[in-house]
């Protein structure tokens, strides 16, 4: 399969008065054409920073891509000038933001905001732009598009605004769409509708999607592959099936255990403890302090990637070839 995006050893740091935060610490990722990759993880694990790095939208200063490469269709985006990057943003790569209530400018009409990207990047006349805008609004399911174009964001409901944000992101037919928590700010029924919309759009346009979320329900619905992120590193990647049915990293298992389920009674099992301080991240595996299976080596050395299958990789000493493998029965006998 053709790789549309390949991130290698990406490091992003933020310099503040208090010190340097290492928000992303060596992320390796790839995205195939036409696929949806979900990046999951708790708040502050670096998932949004990674996606902003792809768009080169990290506020600088204080932020900086300190190391690594981001190859988009073979071009290294980290070497692009700001001017060259502007020709990529909104055209080849677009972004959908979390909160539709704040992502639209309250003083400009929906039509202006929808068409400005198109007018800037594609050489189209005002009437062509309007035609395309109406087409997009129909695609994202907004009734009376012609009238709605002249209205302002405050005249739209939350769900409708998110549909508009999506329309703005796809109006220039991008090849990569980054959705940063696109449903977090919406209520559940609207969430479901928006997720369906993503599926429809992908079917129609073949766009590749990176979905950033902490909601595993959303992931289950639309993702093909999943990357689990923790403390600035990808700790496990795999297909949806790999990660949901055969999770190998203790953190992934913990995440899945902490999802409330309708078919099981009993208490939820949260992951105890808090993520490490990224001002001075630990040398070894950052999950050690919270991990029920932690060994001496975990604290000292960061585990290399263990390839479990073509699609499934994990960074955990438990999966290392050198780790002792014992059968479940013998383990229980020894106690």
């Amino acid at each position, binding site marked *: 399969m053709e790789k549309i995006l390949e991130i290698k050893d990406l490091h992003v740091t933020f310099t503040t008065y208090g010190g340097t935060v290492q928000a992303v610490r060596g992320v390796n990722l790839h995205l195939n054409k036409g696929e949806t990759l979900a990046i999951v993880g708790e708040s502050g694990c670096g998932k949004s920073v990674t996606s902003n790095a792809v768009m080169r*939208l990290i506020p600088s200063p204080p932020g900086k891509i300190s190391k690594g490469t981001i190859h988009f269709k073979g071009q290294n985006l980290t070497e692009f000038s700001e001017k060259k990057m*502007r020709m990529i*943003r909104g055209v080849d790569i*677009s972004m959908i933001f979390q909160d539709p209530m*704040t992502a*639209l400018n*309250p003083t400009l009409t929906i039509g202006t905001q929808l068409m400005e990207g198109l007018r800037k990047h594609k050489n189209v006349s005002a009437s062509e732009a309007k035609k395309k805008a109406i087409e997009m609004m129909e695609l994202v399911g907004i009734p009376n598009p012609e009238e709605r174009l002249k209205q302002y964001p405050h005249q739209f409901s939350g769900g409708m605004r998110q549909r508009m944000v999506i329309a703005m992101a796809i109006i220039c037919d991008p090849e990569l769409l980054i959705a940063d928590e696109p449903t977090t700010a919406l209520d559940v029924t609207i969430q479901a509708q928006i997720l369906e919309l993503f599926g429809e759009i992908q079917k129609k346009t073949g766009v590749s999607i990176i979905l950033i979320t902490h909601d595993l329900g959303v992931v289950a619905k639309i993702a093909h592959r999943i990357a689990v992120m923790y403390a600035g590193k990808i700790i496990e990647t795999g297909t949806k099936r790999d990660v949901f049915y055969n999770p190998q990293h203790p953190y992934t298992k913990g995440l899945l255990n902490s999802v409330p389920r309708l078919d099981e009674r009993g208490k939820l099992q949260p992951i105890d403890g808090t993520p490490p301080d990224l001002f001075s991240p630990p040398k070894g595996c950052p999950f050690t302090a919270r991990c029920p299976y932690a060994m001496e080596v975990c604290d000292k050395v960061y585990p290399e990637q263990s390839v479990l299958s073509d699609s499934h990789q994990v960074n955990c000493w438990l999966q290392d070839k050198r780790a002792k493998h014992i059968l479940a029965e013998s383990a229980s006998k020894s106690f």
Partner: protein
Amino acid sequence: MLRYLLKRSLIALVTLWIIVTITFLLMITVPGSPFSDERSSNETIQANLEAHYNLDEPYHVQYLIYMKNIAMLDLGPSIKQPNQTVNDLLGRGFPISFELGMVTIIVAVISGIVFGIISALRHNGIIDYLSMGFAVLGISIPNFILATLFIQKLAVDWAMFPVATWSSPAHMVLPVAALATGPMAIIARLTRSTMLEVLTQDYIKMAKAKGLSPWKITFKHALRNALMPVVTIMGTLLAGILTGTFVIEQIFAIPGMGKYFVESINQRDYPVIMGTTVFYSAFLIFMLFLVDIVYGIIDPRIKLHKKGGE
């Protein structure tokens, strides 16, 4: 919209009536009369003069007479400026004061916003620190001090501009600069802080994600949202500039309204006090109304003619 206009005009009239009444009350509580300091005149002449200007009538009758005249837009004769009505004085002095005030406002708003934007975009840079330092100076130093300083340095010592009076654009430079510095500094600081806030908003990030140029993001997306607080304080600034013109006109010997206004109070020239107060109040009320209209233009969420949110 028409209903809104009607409502606003009605409120304006009531406001004006209250201002006139309070001014009238204040005037009669202050002891003395326009003729009390004229030592030469005897009692008969005094009585005749007072009868001529209706000052011998009881206060409520004087008040009614004045209200009747003002309803017909007649502000009465001046007592101290012989053979001139208050309408004459206003007609002669106001255009000059208006010119000074308007040029000042335009200069203050444009330069204030420009400095504010530059400071916000070069946030925590040298330009930012410099212009904000000047802004603090501009807010702290009263305009009459600036005016005398400008006259001494720029007009007398270095002879770059005329010292005083009002006849050519060169004459405008010093009084406008003295008067505009304060409001400009306030606008610059306000624009800077609201711009900084707006620039962190999601819709700015979204505009960046669309690949728009920094120029477009600043002027199309950010500035419009950053202008609201500036428009809000425009009302207060207008009042400040208006009263500021009185002082500046005195210093630069500009033949505007300021001279008459100040003199009329010292000389108890009742009709001039009343007339200028009423006129300036009406003017200020009108300007505030314009500010409200500008609100609606900048921010579509503000609807003037509808009640509540829709």
